[in-house]
């Protein structure tokens, strides 16, 4: 009995540790995205929780006539600038000089419980805005900075992901039916091609495809990305749907044939309705894949400012303003929100897709 209790404690304890490790990074980002930009840069996000730290109780700005090179008497304590700068602990209080020698001031701090609360939506407003955005900071000053057009990029990502999900499904479901229920010369060989292409690295196809798109004058447009994702998603789509469609009960389909139905009728009125779970599984898979993709967008949309997707915008902020954490955190969540919603609402189908198609790299 005792060892059983200990075992369950060990199991749940280590599981909790792993879950904590898995959740904290995302949680930190989420919390930070709502904090004032000054706060983000001065204190860790975990200080929003109650903790003990030195909190300023009183500020003393010394008279300009005070000689800052010699000992000064401030708030009843006499010390040099260097000593004040390092902080003096006396009577349970800390006397610390903030700022430089000439225009700084002294702060008297108490060690007590505090929490750095105070949240704002301005980070989100700025990353979403196109054009300039003027933020009002916590200390009362304003700051005007260009917005990051994330709202536009968000719409662009939808514009890319929806057709890039639907078109390959349409193509692949026809092909999957053909491979599963029709006999023709070359059937085995052509399906072997599909299986072989499942793990092919995209990189091998990028450059020639880019050339074709340049020739067709579609480079930099959504059309190029739709076509590329259609091609890259097809092997998995065909393979997954084939697995499902080929295992539909044979007698249903043979009964339909016996009633004189053609392949085309059987496909549209029997196979498609029966395959909805598999279609949904692949749709979620492909949607998340396209939404989260960076390489294909980088190559085929490139620097075109109007057509960039959320992943590109976010990567651009990382590259150009990698220390602007208020933008990075908010921007990060803008890119994540839709996949997280899709993921949570349709997780069942997504898992099914993973289980069926785990051969893809």
């Amino acid at each position, binding site marked *: 009995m005792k060892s059983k209790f200990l075992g369950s404690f060990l199991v749940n304890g280590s599981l909790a540790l792993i879950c904590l490790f898995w959740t904290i990074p995302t949680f930190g980002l989420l919390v930070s995205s709502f904090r004032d930009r000054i706060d983000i840069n001065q204190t860790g996000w975990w200080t929003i929780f109650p903790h003990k730290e030195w909190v300023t109780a009183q500020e003393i700005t010394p008279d300009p006539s005070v000689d800052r090179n010699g000992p000064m008497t401030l708030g009843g304590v006499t010390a040099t600038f260097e000593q004040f700068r390092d902080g003096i602990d006396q009577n349970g209080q800390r006397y610390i000089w903030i700022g430089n020698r000439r225009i700084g001031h002294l702060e008297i701090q108490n060690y007590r419980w505090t929490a750095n609360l105070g949240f704002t939506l301005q980070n989100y407003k700025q990353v979403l805005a196109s054009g300039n955005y003027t933020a009002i900071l916590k200390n009362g000053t304003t700051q005007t900075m260009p917005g990051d057009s994330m709202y536009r990029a968000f719409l662009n990502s939808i514009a890319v992901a*929806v057709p890039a999900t639907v078109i390959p499904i349409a193509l692949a479901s026809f*092909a999957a039916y053909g491979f599963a229920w029709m006999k023709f010369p070359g059937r085995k060989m052509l399906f072997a091609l599909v299986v072989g292409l499942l*793990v092919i690295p995209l990189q*091998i196809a990028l*450059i020639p495809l880019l050339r074709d798109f340049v020739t067709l004058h579609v480079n930099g447009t959504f059309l190029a990305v739709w076509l590329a994702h259609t091609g890259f998603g097809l092997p998995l789509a065909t393979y997954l749907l084939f697995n499902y469609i080929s295992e539909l009960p044979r007698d249903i389909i043979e009964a339909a044939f016996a009633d004189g139905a053609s392949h085309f009728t059987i496909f549209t009125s029997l196979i498609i309705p029966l395959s909805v779970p598999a279609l949904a599984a692949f749709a979620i898979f492909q949607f998340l894949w396209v939404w989260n993709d960076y390489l294909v967008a980088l190559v085929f949309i490139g620097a075109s400012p109007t057509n960039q997707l959320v992943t590109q915008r976010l990567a651009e902020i990382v590259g150009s303003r990698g220390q602007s954490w208020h933008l990075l955190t908010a921007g990060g969540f803008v*890119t994540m929100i839709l996949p997280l919603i899709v993921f949570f609402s349709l997780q069942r189908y997504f898992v099914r897709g993973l289980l069926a198609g785990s051969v893809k790299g």
Partner: protein
Amino acid sequence: MSTPKPQSTANRQAGLGIFRSIAALLPLVFSLAALTWGFFFIRDLQSGANVAPQLVLVVLAIIWGVGGIVLLFTTANFFVEQLPDAWIRRLQPFIFVGPAIIMLGWALVIPTIRTIIASFFGDASIKFAGLKNYIYIFSDPTLLVMFRNNLMWIVFGTSFTVVVGLLVAVLADRSKFETIAKGLVFLPMAISFVGAGVIWNFVYAVRPMGAPQIGLLNAIVTSFGGQPEAWTAFFQPWNNFFLIVIVVWLQTGFAMVLFSAAIKGIPTEIMEAARVDGATEIQIFFRIMIPQILGTIITVTTTIVIFSLKIFDVVWVMTGGQYGTSVIATQFYRQYFTYNRNGVGSAIAVVLFVAVIPVMAYNLRQFARREVFK
């Protein structure tokens, strides 16, 4: 399938059929023309100064893409069904699989061949260079780093993901909190590599000594009296390791889901029998569970090996491949898009391709054994 018609009817039909067939071809020609016209129409909506609103483009794209495919199938099928029965049986399968095969050919097969050819040519793709590009890749010291790093990715990335994924699956299987624990570990699967890069960049953020650390890792390190460290930059070659952690974090959920399903598939009688015989949990794990789910372990391992081989986004966003973190895919991008070295870039892509050939062969062998194709 329809029964063969008497000979005489079939002949008469064939005679009439010529005219009928030509007439029946018209809708197909029309739909092909419409599809082509739609392509240029949508293309021109996006070029030039006036870009159409995204919503209009999405709707048009779906109408064009899905509607076009359905139209093409319907008209092609209509045409084929006017032909004699023997031809219907011969041609109809290709209406179903043809468009997908053409798309695969254009988007993957032909480009692969073109890239292989380009890899034997100079950077302008005019002068034949023989093996020069390959010799360069395998001898240039700055490029050789990428092989070392990819090896690190494959070895550490894969083993950590598999081990942690298996651990979570086994632990969750015995816990009351299975659903929530699996959900939390699985969650990062929905996040892009770029997003994950930002999340972990924030964990790794570094401030000068003495300033308050806003990155969790350095805050922990300094609170124990350590020095703040730029984990992904100057901490070589361990910085690769800090990048690998990100991807392990991201894809452990994938491994876990597959392992979890496999563990639940193990017949309970086997486990119970072992317990009755007095086997410890550790023995059950290594002697029964592992052999039972070996197939899944192999699948997950190959998937993640391929994944690690192609890794790009995380490295590109976090370090740009600098500080000795470049991998094959980032070098491919840099050589081709930054340095305009078509030949070298293509050769790197071919190396990547050759590396996955064993997996391709394995998949094909598994496929050849399948019942449906015998």
